[in-house]
């Protein structure tokens, strides 16, 4: 019975954790999946967002989620700038992928060091009414608890992801982004500037870092280097879900969340980072196109 109780609790927190992972990975799913820009600095930008949320919260007492919403336009602008530079220096001249990767790796490193210099390597937390308490209940004799901080992250991430998915599915801009993914040339023949579409889409992808960062500092204590741990997670999610598929990302994040939660419950939390990597390697070896992917993997 105790095993069952552990299992149910792990499952609940896994689903909630999956919601948090969706928020982390959705921006990368747009940048990497739809635009083919391998932004390995994405998790580090999320950490930067988390630090902004921390400073807004500790200085002005703003609720972290509200802080995340406030930061979104700034991250959008940052994304616009980064993609403009990336396009100017690498894509336009069709430089080797190697240099683009090195560029983002450099950005990752610079962001991390700047964060260390600004705030030191201490772990940071935020204060809000819903952090630290849990909802407890019992069904048929099985007790379970739902921490409010995970629940709030799950709800916010869900709203953000479903909103983005609806936007990309329904709006003209969303269709244009998909078109850029399929055939840039055809899009420009239809009278749409593909580079502008890509700039905006990359901006949206990076814009999610504001809210994702706020959720990150709600869910875990952060320090500048914590982004590295999530690189494996976000890429495992995007690759498992299939490049270019937002619903795939959603499903994959849930799978990873549940798997990590089960592993940390039954084998200990220090083994959790190994889960994402095993999934990533397994997917690359046996089904490189992912669950719902249509893209070319070669």
């Amino acid at each position, binding site marked *: 019975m105790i095993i069952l109780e552990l299992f149910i609790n792990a499952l609940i927190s896994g689903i909630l954790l999956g919601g948090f992972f969706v928020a982390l990975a959705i921006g990368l799913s747009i940048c990497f999946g739809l635009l083919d820009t391998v932004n*390995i600095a994405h998790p580090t930008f999320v950490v930067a967002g988390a630090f902004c949320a921390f400073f807004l919260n500790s200085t002005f007492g703003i609720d972290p989620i509200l802080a995340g919403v406030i930061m979104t336009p700034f991250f959008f602008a940052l994304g616009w700038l980064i993609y403009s530079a990336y396009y100017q220096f690498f894509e336009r001249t069709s430089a080797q992928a*190697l240099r683009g990767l*090195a560029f983002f790796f450099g950005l990752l490193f610079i962001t991390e060091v700047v964060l260390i210099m600004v705030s030191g390597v201490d772990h940071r937390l935020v204060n809000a009414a819903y952090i630290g308490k849990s909802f407890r209940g019992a069904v048929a004799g099985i007790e379970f608890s739902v921490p409010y901080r995970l629940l709030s992250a799950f709800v916010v991430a869900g709203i953000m992801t479903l909103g983005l998915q609806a936007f990309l599915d329904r709006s003209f801009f969303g269709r244009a982004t998909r078109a850029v993914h399929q055939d840039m040339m055809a899009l420009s023949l239809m009278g749409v500037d593909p580079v502008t579409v890509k700039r905006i889409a990359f901006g949206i992808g990076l814009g999610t870092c504001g809210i994702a960062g706020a959720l990150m500092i709600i869910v875990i204590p952060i320090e500048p280097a914590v982004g590295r741990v999530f*690189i494996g997670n976000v890429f495992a999610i995007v690759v498992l879900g299939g490049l270019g598929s937002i619903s795939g990302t959603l499903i994959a994040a849930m799978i990873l969340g549940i798997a990590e939660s089960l592993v940390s419950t039954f084998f200990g939390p220090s083994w959790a980072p*190994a889960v994402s990597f095993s999934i990533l*390697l397994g997917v690359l070896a046996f089904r490189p196109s992912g669950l719902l992917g249509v893209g070319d993997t070669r």
Partner: protein
Amino acid sequence: MTTVLRYKFELGCVLVLVLAFVLTQIGVNNFFFFAGFAVVQFVMIATAWNILGGYGGYINFGTAGFLGVGSYTAIALIQWSDVSIVPQIIIGALMAGLLGLFIGYFTLRLRGVYFAIATLALAIVLETFVNNWDFVGGAAGISILPPRNPELLGVMIVDRKGAGIFDNNTEFLFFLISAMAIFSVWIARTIERGKLGRGLNAIKDNEEAAECMGVPTLRLKLVATTVSGSLMGAAGAIFPNYLTFVDPLTAFNLEFAINALAMPMIGGTFTWIGPVIGALLLGTVQQIAIVTISSELNLLILGVVLVIFVVAAPHGIVGWFMKKN
């Protein structure tokens, strides 16, 4: 005379090695060997990275992972039964080479970015594994005492009183890493001039075209990953003896990854001299900066310089001296 000219690179190698040996014998302040070790180790790491990254165009973010495998293989061997340093290096290199083969087999058939991502995640997972492995110290780290009077083939190598070849361990390790670095550069140059290097270059330019022309792409990539990985492993295996205290945070530090990438990129990736120049230059600057400025600022400068070079000077320093074609 012509045979001498033909082997002038090899002669140069021997000359540099002799120079390193002489340096250890004339009683220079020990700190220079300590700092010099770090620089020469970077020459080796950058050269190893460049075999796959520079010639083949497959970027490896997992340098720290390969180094860590080397280091922790050495530690495990010391813990197990006080194995001496040469077998440590050989077995460390073997393990890291196997790791390269394994990762390469799973990801090199796909687009290059997947290999890069997998290697980046690899370092983190290996760190997780070592954190949970108490035999080699776990997350708390482990102290390694270098043997007091190591011997090799019956010859005493280090003795404080002057009976050995070297007066202290740091001098011995400096000489050893110099020999290994020179060997790595020789391997890189041999690969560059041989069939393997030309095949890798073809892969970098256009993989599909190379495959259509009959280049065995997967096999060449796997060979390059294995060689590159095992050289990194060898550079890592000597590390515990140098540091005398190793914990997962040091052994799997991301700094290695950015250095291994930045040094060839700044020096120039298409020829063996590029990573050597990059590593000597950046390594020395970093050693000076760590002492005089701060360690963090030094990393920031490294990141900024890398981005500038990637954007503005794709052929690195060597590119400045080459004719434009």
